[in-house]
């Protein structure tokens, strides 16, 4: 596929992620920070986010699965996850975190478990989409083109 087509595809894909609410303006802030001195900035930050998230989801699953749930602990993990997802612009992941927090306050284990499932789904979805996006970027670069930015 030639560069122009790849670039259009990339822009359309990016736009769809924003339209579906998967990403918000904070992701664009990260894209705008990327420059020649740090051409992989977004991929690097998002990779850190993936690592962080996987650990948090693991810890959350254990914490919510306990006989006696330590809601303070659960809330602390969710607060962290909410923060990092917000920092990279993963809007729906962040919203899923907010939902868990409210059920933590109510000490509602079942609702927390349901929300955790939702959180995992949202995370999985945005992870896949971002990886697709990065692959598209790579194709553009390999074809000798520049990665366009969505206005």
């Amino acid at each position, binding site marked *: 596929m030639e560069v122009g087509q790849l670039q259009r595809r990339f822009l359309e894909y990016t736009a769809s992620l924003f339209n579906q609410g998967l990403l918000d303006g904070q992701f664009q*802030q990260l894209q705008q*920070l990327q*420059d020649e001195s*740090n051409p992989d900035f977004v991929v690097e*930050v998002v990779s850190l*986010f993936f690592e962080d998230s996987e650990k948090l989801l693991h810890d959350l699953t254990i914490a919510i699965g306990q006989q006696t749930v330590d809601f303070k602990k659960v809330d602390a993990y969710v*607060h962290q996850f909410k*923060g990092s997802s*917000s*920092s990279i612009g993963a809007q729906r992941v962040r919203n899923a975190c907010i939902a868990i927090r409210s059920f933590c306050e109510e000490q509602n284990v079942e609702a927390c478990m349901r929300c955790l499932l939702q959180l995992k789904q949202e995370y999985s979805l945005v992870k896949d989409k971002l990886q697709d996006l990065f692959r598209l970027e790579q194709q553009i670069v390999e074809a000798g083109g520049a990665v366009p930015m969505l206005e």
Partner: protein
Amino acid sequence: MDVSASFSVSTDGNGSKQEPPHVLAVDDSLVDRKIVEKLLKTFSCKVTTAESGMRALEYLGLRDDQENTLSSNGSKVNMIITDYCMPGMTGYELLKKVKESSLFKEVPVVIMSSENIPTRINKCLEEGAEMFMLKPLKQSDMKKLRGQLLKC
């Protein structure tokens, strides 16, 4: 602790217009540390990051068991920006320690938080924080900060 900046060359007492401001950024989140570092560097700051209040104090030479002498690190810090919610020592507690120290009480401290809680904000401002910023940080926030940094 990850130190991402080299030490600045010492200057004579009169401060340096040429030298970029040196900011100590404190946050327990690796993702946020990376972002705040890039934001600051984009606005021509030299950045040192610390993953906790304790590490920040260590860097400044302010930890309780360290000698209260001028550390070559801390003397070059022009601003401290710290997250509020951190395990162990909160950003507020770090702010207090900095403001209690004769060496660093003049260094502006900026507190960041993902939560917009007025009592929290007021508490920090009353304790001497220069500014309170809501996360996630944007380039426009850095612009504001940079304006602040140019004053000192």
